[in-house]
């Protein structure tokens, strides 16, 4: 490159090497935008901590490793203890408020069907006995990943009456589109 390049501002292109000094001054508009953008980034960051203080909807973080068979055995025990009926071969379980609630995901169903009371907080203990699944509670719109070998504790407070669907939203095999479940909320 000869010095013509440095003296001539016009033929600069993003495809050519820049002139020697490419760190020019920043214009007033760009400088202002930069500060505004940085402040917005800080707000986005603190937003998550602020919501932890003011919001009722938090990302569950309590989790444990658990052996798949242990989980299945505990879940069966839970279902036997509080079963109140059966629908399409799936137990319907009405645990007392305050009790730990097991929810088992496996190819291709969620067990059991739960009957919860409105306004009470339940500890849902969720895991999978085979592959990964997605726990999607609809139309409430709450979604969680379910991994085999890990127990995910989700504290949930149903605040509406009615029947709510569970659908699996992580691909889990050719029956992924038949994997459903149900939570009924009663008074």
């Amino acid at each position: 490159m000869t010095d013509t390049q440095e003296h001539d501002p016009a033929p600069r292109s993003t495809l050519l090497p820049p002139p020697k000094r490419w760190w020019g001054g920043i214009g007033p508009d760009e400088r202002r935008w930069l500060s505004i953008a940085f402040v917005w980034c800080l707000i986005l960051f603190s937003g998550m901590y602020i919501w932890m203080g003011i919001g009722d909807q938090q990302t569950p973080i309590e989790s444990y490793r658990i052996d798949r068979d242990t989980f299945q055995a505990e879940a069966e025990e839970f279902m036997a203890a509080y079963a109140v009926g059966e629908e399409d071969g799936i137990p319907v379980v009405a645990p007392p408020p305050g009790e730990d609630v097991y929810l088992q995901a496996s190819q291709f169903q969620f067990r059991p069907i739960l009957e919860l009371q409105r306004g009470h907080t339940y500890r849902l203990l969720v895991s999978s006995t085979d592959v990964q699944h997605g726990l999607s509670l609809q139309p409430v719109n709450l979604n969680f990943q379910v991994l085999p070998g890990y127990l995910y504790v989700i504290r949930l407070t149903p605040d509406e009456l009615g029947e709510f669907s569970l659908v699996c939203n992580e691909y889990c095999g050719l029956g992924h589109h038949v994997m459903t479940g149900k939570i009924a909320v009663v008074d």
Partner: protein
Amino acid sequence: MATTVDPKPSEAPGLRKCAATGFLVDERGRQLALANAVAGVVLLALGGAMAVVIALQRQGLPVSDDWWYRLLASHGATMLLFWLLLFEVAALYWGSTMLLNTRMRVPRLAWGVFGAMLLGVALAQWAMLTGRATVMFTAYPPLEAHSLYYLGVLLFAGGALVAIGIFFANLVGAKRDGSYVGSLPLVVYGFMAAAVIGVYSLVTGAVAYGLLFAQSVGLLDSVDPATYRLFFWGIGHGAQQVNLAAMVAVWYALIAFTLGGRPVNEGLSRFAFLLYIAFIHLGAVHHLLVDPGLGTSHRIMNTSYLLYLAVLASLIHAFSIPAAIEVAQRERNRSRGLFGWLLRAPWREPGFSSLVLSLVWFGFIAGVTGVLMGTMQLNMLIHNTLFVVGHFHATVVSGTTLAFMGISYYLLPLLAGRRLVGATMARWQPYVFAGGVALLTLAMLLAGRLGVPRRVADLSYENAPVAVDMFATGQTPTVMVLVSVGALFAVIGGIMFVWVMVATLLKGERTDRPDTALLHAFGAQERERGASEEGGAAMLTGHDNGLSARWERFEAPGTYLIVLVFLAWFVAMYLLAHFNLAQTWPVG
């Protein structure tokens, strides 16, 4: 003054001068770039064909569930891995040889890499389409696929890694030969950022798929699903950041191609690329926000890219790209008032329209939804719903793919030495494609808000033990019709693109000057024009540019107002999302 691009002949054996651009071209680099780009476009066409089928199945196109999943798996891998990475390898070869006036290093190895990548594609496609690898590109264990599927993807990724190595060899060689002086051109610098991010993405990806491969051939008993997810998203997310950096570099190239513009402050743009390299990989954790096993601070620090510094980088580009357009227009006196430069922009130029459409949709839709989804608590609302699919079609389709299509209208004629065929088709193509993808993505985002899960073959849940009829009634079916209509338009736009490419490649008139009158890009025009009225350094001030004194001292007043509108939209969406969050059940 062709001084910038004429190294001494002794330093450039085997290079010939491109008549259109004045750059020195290495025949082997040219062929390699062309081969990789063409292979990429062929796979784009294949992935597009699959997209029609998976989208129209919802409107009754008879496809078995089994085949729907196979095609979905293949569509994802074909598009996200094969099309994008092959095109990026082409871009890396182009940028590191032609733009630097240097020769292609180790061309034989590069051909070997190309062969290995194609073999990898063939193995993976065979496994996916014969139903031996219906695990989706995420391949989460304990789902299992045929070992040749993992091997195919590993070959492909390994090939891409070596290609990146060759790119760096070219850079180092060019520097040593002195074929360019000073800093790298901005576009090549952007490609370099993409390449650096590519290295750590591909390495973590190789670990993830390597574990699965080892398991599939019996070397490992099992792979821990949480560990796998951590490694997998190193590439699953990292590769998207390669796409992002490459796309931004291509945007800068398109500005040069269509307007001869450059950033007002090039240093800032380069700094933004550095921020990408330093912080963007942290964001991988946003895929694990509702997974068991991670603590709160870990989630927040990582999902926020440490104080959103990578988002800051994107916000810098969000200013500097439109500002480059605005300043280029003002310098050429093609502007009056605040937004006259937009009115008088070359909207009929496919490179320009794809640049703007890609930029707008990427910013307003893809970027904003991405930040929202990556906000720890908000993630619960949309994880694994069609919202996610809407978001990433806005990033990789209306963003990256559209930008790559835009630059192909200039690169292919240059690389193939042929005149572009179908200029009218090319003129309309970005609008049809962007329009289709806009509808597709908006409809997917809406469907996700209605709770529609992703990767589900049958939304009626007819055969489910516990009936779910919420997606067969209400608004969902209408929204899914919009998804399909958007898909149709997008695919028509895709066909138009492929048609122009194929016609140019096969039928285009051979020429060493495929000059489409847009070669501001290389400084060629300006160099020839010299001190003509337009090419001169006419600055913002001193013209009657119709600006009031209030705006006069700004570099790019129109852009400044546009980014403020963008920010207002961002803030509004952020508040709306939290309003939605507050409506759902208390959870924690």
